């Protein structure tokens, strides 16, 4: 088929481990053909990117059309198994060095007025016309190395370039992608040695000989071949799958067999309009042969109709006869069009098949991205999600041996290696915790009291300057969204705090309502401006006194004070059950303050505590953690927190819903449990006393070092609510919370 001589070798590529020489400008497919072989697993080659017959694994990427890849020295090609399947690229995820295109790809981004896809004569003419009209025009041409992969809504074009990915946004898109050659469907069309007219011309131009060639249909120009007049009946080959002869009709209808090395088929064209059909956007127009009406081929009668999937015309007929009698059902039932070329080769034939049976030509099936395939790495180029936040004390925690974990979008210390030790430091000495992640909003304005009275279910107006109140944040359904403190810092100025995970949502919530109501309220988010350290334990007050806080606020009071030279908003509250002071301060003073606290508390055995200890401490107090203990429909009542809701208020968000649902039976309740032995895992099912029915689940569980028992919080969802249940095979007793210091004397101390 070829003499293999190369004038001007471009170097060698490696095909299935063997080097072959290529000529400068060869595609991998042409280089393979120049060497006397055929890429892919047989079938008609178009060498124009339309069929799936020249696939191979190129440089580790499987299912690459070799006709679309320029041969470069060292390009490694592993024959893609025609209809077989390549192995998964890499088996061991530890070997990250072997991701062939594992580098993070860059993205170039361009905004243009008009993008023209296709650099052929009609595309260039359209581009010239657009440029003459004053538009900013970009031509995207696959032959010049810019392959458009897809058009997405918003006229957003994704393309692959030699150096990475190209994302284009255009006001108008002109599709000038031309047309594809129709592939023959007849017996033997899976043999190797069949090419389209266009492919024959390309091979001729590349100097690749075709051997003894015959042409059926429109012959190629400038290619030496015998032109057969008759209709194509079948191809015949040898046992190796190679074409040996072509059978066509004589003028009298009899069969004529012509021996050949190569059969060249020119059976007409079909528009290459997949890109144009992807979004159905008005601002996408078609020019050139992609816009032309092309007649469908004759209805196929035998042979492989979909080379990618191996669907034969007989298969199509069988599926049709089984009732799969429309294009979309037929495609899915017969697999025709589901392969790498996505129907590029078979769709005209399938439509002709249906038209012959129904008398109506069906619309083409849906065009979905991607028309030219991209790898996941190419799709993910320059994609970044999840910016995790670090508190100013991040490095301090690491230096103290903390195991950091992501929680609510922040890196936080889970523990410092000794959860029980951290616990005891809080209960019996003094400890510090990094609570910088708490949500913090400053609100002020003439309508601020009115706004907060509407937002919160508790009273706000009667909070005195310098005092604070714990508050739930409810949604319109009366369900708990978040909780935190309301601190009054002036007649018309408040600081609001929220949970770490709920802060962003709370800010949006409050801004939304203030906008909606049109109230005169300023809102400043200080969450990332202020760090916060919780100083807690029996010696907390004394520790702070050593650092300059002579007159600490009393319980639920707050004040401004310099501590260790750092200006702090000192809040007296307690989540741990011990005396606790939250020191909110500018982030640039945080390390100074943290170190000063650790230094000054050394003789108290001060140590920092992580989240795990904090969860245990709060559990002993029965404090809720919104999100961990609560569910979608958790009302204050179900939490046993009716005290936090003032139904006598004229209005607040969620009040109407709470009035409505308060008349419903009381069927879900969040309660405390105590049991002997080790604490069961959080999430454990709670069973009824006879142990055969699940009646709830554990949301918090902790073996209390102080009480020597397992303490739990969780849901009961069957009435009547029992007072004894079974958890983890053991009996647990419903127990009032808090489990520890019921009167709250220690927190107030």
């Amino acid at each position, binding site marked *: 088929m070829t003499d293999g001589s190369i004038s001007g070798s471009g170097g060698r590529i490696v095909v299935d481990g063997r080097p072959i020489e290529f000529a400068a400008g060869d595609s991998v497919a042409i280089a393979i053909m120049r060497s006397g072989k055929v890429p892919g697993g047989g079938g008609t080659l178009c060498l124009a990117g339309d069929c799936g017959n020249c696939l191979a694994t190129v440089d580790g990427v499987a299912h690459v059309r070799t006709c679309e890849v320029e041969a470069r020295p060292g390009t490694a090609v592993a024959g893609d198994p025609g209809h077989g399947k390549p192995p998964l690229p890499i088996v061991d995820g530890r070997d990250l060095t072997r991701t062939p295109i594992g580098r993070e790809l*860059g*993205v*170039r*981004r361009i*905004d243009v007025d008009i993008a023209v896809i296709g650099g052929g004569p009609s595309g260039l003419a359209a581009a010239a016309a657009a440029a003459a009209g004053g538009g900013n025009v970009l031509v995207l041409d696959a032959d010049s190395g810019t392959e458009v992969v897809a058009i997405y809504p918003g006229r957003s074009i994704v393309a692959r370039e030699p150096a990475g990915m190209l*994302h284009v946004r255009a006001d108008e898109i002109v599709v000038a992608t031309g047309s594809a050659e129709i592939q023959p469907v007849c017996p033997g069309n899976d043999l190797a040695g069949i090419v389209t007219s266009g492919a024959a011309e390309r091979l001729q131009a590349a100097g690749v000989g075709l051997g003894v060639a015959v042409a059926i249909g429109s012959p190629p120009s400038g290619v030496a071949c015998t032109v057969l007049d008759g209709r194509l009946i079948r191809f015949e080959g040898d046992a190796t799958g190679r074409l040996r002869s072509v059978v066509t009709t004589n003028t009298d209808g009899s069969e004529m067999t012509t021996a050949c090395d190569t059969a060249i088929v020119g059976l007409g064209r079909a528009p290459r309009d997949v890109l144009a059909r992807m979004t159905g956007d008005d601002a996408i127009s078609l020019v050139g042969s992609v816009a032309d009406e092309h007649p469908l081929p004759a209805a196929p009668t035998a042979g492989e109709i979909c080379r990618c999937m191996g669907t034969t015309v007989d298969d199509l007929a069988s599926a049709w006869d089984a009732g799969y009698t429309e294009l979309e059902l037929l495609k899915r039932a017969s697999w025709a069009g589901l392969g790498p070329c996505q129907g590029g080769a078979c769709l005209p034939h399938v439509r002709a098949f249906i038209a012959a049976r129904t008398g109506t030509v069906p619309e083409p099936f849906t065009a979905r991205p991607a028309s030219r395939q991209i790898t996941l790495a190419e799709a993910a180029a*320059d*994609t*970044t*999600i*999840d*910016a*995790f*936040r*670090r*508190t*100013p004390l*991040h490095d301090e925690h690491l230096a103290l041996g903390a195991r950091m974990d992501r929680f609510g979008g*922040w890196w936080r210390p889970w523990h410092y290696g000794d959860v029980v030790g951290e616990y005891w430091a809080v209960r019996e000495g003094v400890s510090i915790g990094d609570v910088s992640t708490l949500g913090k909003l*400053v609100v*002020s*304005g*003439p309508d*601020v009291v009115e706004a907060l009275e509407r937002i919160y279910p508790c009273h706000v107006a009667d909070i005195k300057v310098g005092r604070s109140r714990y508050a739930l944040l409810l949604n319109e359904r009366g369900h708990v969204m978040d909780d935190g403190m309301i601190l009054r810092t002036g007649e*018309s*100025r408040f600081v609001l705090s929220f949970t770490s995970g709920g802060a962003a949502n709370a800010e949006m919530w409050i801004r939304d309502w203030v906008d909606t109501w049109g109230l*005169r309220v*300023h*809102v*400043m988010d*200080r969450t*990332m*401006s*202020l760090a916060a350290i919780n100083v807690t334990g029996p010696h907390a007050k004394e520790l702070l006194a050593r650092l300059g806080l002579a007159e600490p606020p009393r319980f639920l009071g707050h004040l401004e004070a310099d501590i260790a030279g750092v*200006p702090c908003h000192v809040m007296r509250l307690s989540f741990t059950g011990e005396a606790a002071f939250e020191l909110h301060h*500018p*982030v*640039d*003073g945080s390390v100074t303050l943290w170190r000063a606290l650790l230094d000054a508390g050394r003789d108290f055995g001060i140590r920092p505590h992580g989240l795990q200890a904090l969860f245990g401490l709060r559990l002993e107090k029965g404090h809720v953690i919104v999100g961990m203990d609560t569910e979608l429909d958790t009302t204050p009542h179900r939490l046993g927190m009716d005290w936090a809701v003032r139904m006598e208020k004229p209005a607040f968000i969620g009040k109407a819903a709470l009035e409505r649902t308060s008349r419903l039976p009381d069927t879900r309740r969040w309660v405390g449990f105590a049991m002997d032995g080790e604490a069961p895992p959080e999430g454990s099912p709670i069973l009824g006393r006879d142990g055969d029915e699940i009646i709830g689940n554990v949301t918090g569980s902790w073996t209390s070092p102080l009480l020597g028992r397992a303490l739990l919080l969780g849901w009961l969802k069957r009435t009547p609510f029992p007072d004894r249940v079974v958890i983890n095979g053991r009996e647990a007793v419903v127990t009032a919370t808090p489990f520890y210091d019921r009167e709250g004397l220690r927190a107030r101390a």
Partner: protein
Amino acid sequence: MPALEPLVGRRVIGDPDALDAAIWSGRDVVVLRLAPDEAFGIGATAVELDDEHAIDESEAGFVGAVLSTADLADVIARVDWSLPSDPSALAQGKVAGVPAKLLIGDPSLLVTHAAYAGELADRLGWSS
């Protein structure tokens, strides 16, 4: 390599008109208008504005990096949006997926929250 250094100044929430007319004190104050009712005066020590309810706070929660022309090009390559047509305007949005602010000028300035500094530096390849 550029570095994200702490920025200090005053951040103010106030009536938009009052903010427009605000008088900032301090040396080489650069005012970033974050929203119609919000501004961050980098280097500001005080601000006067005609809004008795304005929230006027000392602000240390941001970091910024001064960008050379080449640095700016690298940063812009990691931005999925167009720069404002007014070159002196503040641009806000994600840079390499991290919420940030970009003030194009001579020199240009990239600003983000201190909490995001590590993540942004990592993503821009600025971490040592």
